[in-house]
């Protein structure tokens, strides 16, 4: 990459692939409201990166600061090896797919897609626009106005309009929020395909954890203007380091337990009169004997057995007893809610391979799981943080 010149089109025109985004100490405050706490973040070149969080967590503000639509209160934004902090949006080598698309209502599909090229003074846009419309499967509708398109089609115009400029970074602000579930699934795969094809860095803002996990290589979970945790989807899911991530990304059962000792690579915990084992390596909290920790386990990792069959549960598994208060059959699995003396409303997802018909509400049961699936969290946090209220 050459030095930034006076011509705004220079940096992005010469870009062959994606650029890394580096945020350093970036923050945004409005009066005494802090939208984004000072944060450092590096988004690797060519990755599909998701900023995940509930509404108002600062993810969109972060995205808009990368685009240049919001000026950071402090900190710097670098794209590739260029500091763009002081540059207005039209001089940055990034393009945005806006929430609700923001297509120009007075221009047709073709002109919407050609807009960026024309502004950069490119004369012969026909070939590029047609190729891009082909890529998003809209080649047959170039003369339609945005209001004559379906939601999914509008979404694809918005993607084409941004991608045609070959930006170093493509920013997506809740791009699928306005689509229905089935179309959303389809577009998720579509976007993933396009990203793999063009190799541009994608930064995707979403509040939908499933969407983030389906599409992104790396997810940053944001909460109250901070990044709670950053990692690959599977890593975040299996090893959450805070109650917020544990509850926001999927569902977690958290049990408050006391450390009673250690054995080999495991911590021994006591819950009431029961015993649990937690691999030391999987505990985010550095707990001493006598300290409290939160022992967590995902609902699908748990097996459920009728209390009469308690003797058949193999030794060495983590066990909890309780009573079923709710069972809902949802086809592939059955979701049980079990009340135990130490953990109210324990969630269990059981695959419907061999259904035990005795497992109805009111039944006494034993829940058991492989201790290796237990993770540990600091007990000083809010145990319900990040829970999605139904």
């Amino acid at each position, binding site marked *: 990459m050459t030095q930034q010149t006076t011509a*705004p*089109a220079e940096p992005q025109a010469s870009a062959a692939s994606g650029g890394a985004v580096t945020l350093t100490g970036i923050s945004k405050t409005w009066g005494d409201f802090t939208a984004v706490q000072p944060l450092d973040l590096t988004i690797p070149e060519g990755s599909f990166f998701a900023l995940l969080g509930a509404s108002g967590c600062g993810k969109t503000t972060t995205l808009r600061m990368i*685009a*240049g*639509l919001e000026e950071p209160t402090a900190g710097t934004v670098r794209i590739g090896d260029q500091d763009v902090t002081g540059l*207005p*949006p*039209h*001089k940055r080598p*990034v*393009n*945005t797919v*806006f*929430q*609700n698309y*923001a*297509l*120009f*209502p*007075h221009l*047709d599909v073709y002109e919407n897609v050609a*807009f*960026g090229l024309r*502004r*950069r003074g490119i004369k012969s846009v026909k070939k590029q626009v047609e190729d891009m419309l082909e890529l998003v499967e809209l080649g047959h509708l170039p*003369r*339609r*106005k945005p209001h*004559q398109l379906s939601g999914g089609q509008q979404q694809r115009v918005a993607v084409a*309009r*941004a991608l045609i*400029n070959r930006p170093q970074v493509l920013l997506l602000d809740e791009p699928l929020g306005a689509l229905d579930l089935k179309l959303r699934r389809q577009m998720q795969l579509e976007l993933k395909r396009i990203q793999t094809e063009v190799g541009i860095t994608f930064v995707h803002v979403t509040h939908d954890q499933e969407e983030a996990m389906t599409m992104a290589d790396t997810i940053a979970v944001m909460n109250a203007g901070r990044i709670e945790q950053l990692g690959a989807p599977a890593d975040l899911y299996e090893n959450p380091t805070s109650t917020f991530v544990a509850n926001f990304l999927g569902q977690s059962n958290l049990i408050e337990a006391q450390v009673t000792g250690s054995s080999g690579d495991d911590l021994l915990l006591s819950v009431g009169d029961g015993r649990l084992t937690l691999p030391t390596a999987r505990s985010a909290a550095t707990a001493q004997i006598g300290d409290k920790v939160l022992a967590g386990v995902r609902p699908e990792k748990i097996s459920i057995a009728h209390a009469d069959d308690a003797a058949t549960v193999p030794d060495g598994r983590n066990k909890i007893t309780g009573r079923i208060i709710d069972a809902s059959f949802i086809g592939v699995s059955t979701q049980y809610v079990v009340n135990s003396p130490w953990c109210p409303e324990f969630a269990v997802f059981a695959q419907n391979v061999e259904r035990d018909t005795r497992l109805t509400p009111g039944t006494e049961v034993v829940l058991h799981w492989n201790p290796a699936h237990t993770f540990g969290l600091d007990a000083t946090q809010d145990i319900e943080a990040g829970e999605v209220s139904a």
Partner: protein
Amino acid sequence: MIVLNWLHWIRRHLVVFAAIAALFYMTIPNVIVLIFSFNQPKGRFNYSWNHFSLDAWTHPCDVGDMCTSVSLSLQIAVLATIGATILGTMVAFALARYRFRGRAPVTGLIWLPMAMPEIVMGASLGTLFLNMRIQFGFWTILIAHIMFCLSFVVTAVKARVMSMDPRLEQAAQDLYATPTQTFLRVTLPIAAPGIAAGALLSFAISIDDFIITQFNAGPSTVTFPMFVWGAAQKGLPVQVNVIGTLMFLVAVLCVVAGQLLGRTRKARS
């Protein structure tokens, strides 16, 4: 049975009947004007049918000063429309987009020319010009017309700008448009229908204004409405009907053209 069917038919087409009746009611004066433009009146007043003649249509400017007054009216209307549209569009953007000291009073005052009786406005403006010792004539009429047209433009454009999604301009900037290009390529085209509506309204109310013009005109600046008023005192020439008919036809033509343009645009896309 037949009566019932008839009632049913009438009930179903009631809206159409109402529309036809309204149309009839509104166009009847224009039709009368049109018919009497082909009359050759007996006396000086063109109120009763005598016999058919094309004289007025073939010699429209035969009446002293009438065509000069039409030309003056057109000049004033065009200039007032341009002035009011430019100024009004800027005011509308300022009011819709920015927070500044005096914004609330300006928003209120903009309504005043529409709400105030014309005679009050005309008289007070005339007094102002008199006290400032400004000579009455073309410029005083133009200033007065721009003033009362302004509120219509501001109202029309402001509504359009307020309802515009701010993300459209951000999207333009994101797609490499400079602030100027953003305004010319996105903001202005989207605001255009509001601006056009304001301009058309301005032209229409400027060209037929009498009261305010009367207070602010000089002795040698006679607009067409003033000419008609003056002529009506001593007898109305048939040519007035010709001009009236032409104005009506031009207006109808504009509306029809607009409708057709909109329809083809819709059909094409």
